[in-house]
């Protein structure tokens, strides 16, 4: 049991350990795939000597960008889930379950169907529209589940579920109405898919995720206080309104950044924060970065599995996370039932 405060020593030791896990998962993702690369061939490719051109292309243009995208997506969704669970005071909150990812996907799709993304803003248009979609969804959920000043967690889950179904139907409807051939594109949004992206796009996502996560971390202590109750947080000197607004905006931003490029990868934001909390405790100053690293490593491994389990066929990684996440949700619901139906 943690009978001590969070010390810098425990903080850095935990993060170092998780960084090592992430590094190991990235190595695994680089090594495993339809083309089997021996460690020596990989080493040769890394140092750029005497290797076949093909090995180098597979490593640098296919596997690494995809693994990095998986890491970014895992980190972002886990961070967002952790933050949403605190600011919404709902242990079962997750960007996917609450329809926030769905809102982001609908925003992203609207941008490409309306042609905004071929306008002056370039590739930034899609994530910006996704951000608007995610942010509006959270605010709507919060407004709808607040009744007489009290936010009811169960209503929130219900409303989120309805939002999610509605957004998914809208996505299918829009894609079909505009061009039936695009239904395959709609499927991309409905089941999250990871594909190698250019390093420029990866850097863009990375900046969005890092800044969102960084802002969340600055408010980590405030998130702890909100877990102790809204009124209590206020009495302890926390500006609850501002924390909630900043938390929602930052978490929506990182959700949108991921959804714009990967579609809907579900339940990562639920399972990872709970695992991290179990392993490292609920203090958000450690929990946020720990969830991010654990989520990054976790999704890299999940993506590697999705590429290899039924090789040469690929399972979309979003299918895999929901297959694992669904049962996990049921277990977590049983454990947190008292809290969820409390208010």
């Amino acid at each position, binding site marked *: 049991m943690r009978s*001590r405060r969070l010390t810098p020593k425990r903080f850095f030791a935990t993060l170092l350990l998780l960084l090592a896990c992430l590094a190991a998962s990235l190595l695994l993702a680089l090594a495993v795939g339809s083309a089997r690369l021996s460690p020596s061939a990989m080493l040769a490719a890394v140092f750029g000597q005497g290797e076949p051109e093909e090995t180098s292309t597979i490593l640098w243009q296919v596997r690494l960008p995809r693994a990095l995208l998986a890491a970014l997506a895992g980190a972002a969704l886990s961070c967002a889930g952790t933050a949403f669970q605190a600011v919404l005071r709902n*242990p079962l909150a997750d960007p996917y379950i609450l329809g926030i990812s769905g809102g982001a996907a609908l925003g992203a799709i609207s941008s490409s169907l309306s042609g905004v993304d071929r306008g002056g803003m370039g590739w930034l248009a899609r994530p910006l529209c996704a951000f608007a979609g995610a942010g509006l969804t959270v605010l709507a959920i919060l407004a709808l589940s607040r009744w007489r000043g009290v936010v009811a967690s169960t209503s929130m889950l219900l409303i989120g579920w309805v939002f999610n179904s509605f957004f998914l139907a809208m996505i299918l409807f829009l894609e079909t109405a505009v061009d039936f051939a695009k239904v395959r594109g709609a499927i991309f949004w409905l089941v999250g898919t990871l594909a190698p992206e250019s390093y420029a796009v990866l850097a863009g996502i990375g900046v969005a995720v890092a800044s969102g996560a960084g802002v969340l971390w600055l408010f980590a*202590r405030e998130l702890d206080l909100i877990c*102790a*109750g809204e009124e209590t947080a206020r009495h302890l000197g926390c500006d609850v309104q501002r924390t909630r607004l900043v938390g929602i905006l930052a978490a929506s931003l990182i959700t949108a950044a991921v959804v714009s490029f990967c579609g809907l990868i579900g339940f990562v934001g639920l399972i990872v924060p709970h695992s991290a909390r179990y392993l490292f*405790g609920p203090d958000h100053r450690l929990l946020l970065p720990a969830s991010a690293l654990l989520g990054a490593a976790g999704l890299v491994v999940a993506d590697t599995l999705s590429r290899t389990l039924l090789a040469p066929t690929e399972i979309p990684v979003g299918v895999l996370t929901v297959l694992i996440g669904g049962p996990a949700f049921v277990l977590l619901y049983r454990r947190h039932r008292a809290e969820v139906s409390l208010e």
Partner: protein
Amino acid sequence: MNESLSMELVRFGYPSRPLFCDLSLVLPGGEFVGVLGPNGAGKTTLLKLLSGTERPQSGAVLAGGRALRDLPARERARLLAVVPQESHVLFPFSVLEVVLMGRFPHLGILGMERSGDERRALECLAEVGMDQAAGRALNTLSSGERQRVLIARALAQEPRILLLDEPTTFLDLKHQLRIYEILSKLNRERRLSILTISHDLNLAARYCRQLWLLQDGRLLARGAPEEVLTPELIRLAYGADVEVARDPRFGTPFIIPYPFQEAGGAS
């Protein structure tokens, strides 16, 4: 420093029911006040106004001579701490972690507690006799233990004023006494100003130095326990017949209630 907490001509009410009309009150520094009154008299609302959770529709709440609403949140938390009636903490925070939350208004820019903060938190836990439980998860404690931890968290804020909303409601006899003993000690030794809502007239009479009797948003009486706890005032406030005896050991008023005999008077 002026450590009083006061209300001046406060008007406050809910749409369905006006409650306070130009109410003025002072909690002087170092005082130990018990707020009594029947259900719906406005005790909890009074506490919410004094703690800044609710804002008066007119009039002002002053803390240390300054308007409470103008105090920055952290500064207010260093001056004034609130112990809620019950508090549910999401996720398994340990007792020490919960008490360390009380150090938030004192944290520096980095937002990390130092060893001094931990020592302070453990001292506060020792003060309420809960230092042995520092590593346990708050949600595994009994309500009496949890209430003591919440008091320790309030103490960790190092406030000058402590407000409590019926801290003994869910507690058994032993723990009720224990909480009041702790409050009384803090009031005597640290000159901490305390205002607590209470439903237990006898405990309040024994430990509080001053009692405020509220009814329908009005201050019916205020003064030393023997001045406030008279059969007439209690009948007026609670609509109950009582006999006021004397506590044989402490000499404070002791209330023995009887069923209300006459028609009318009850609210």
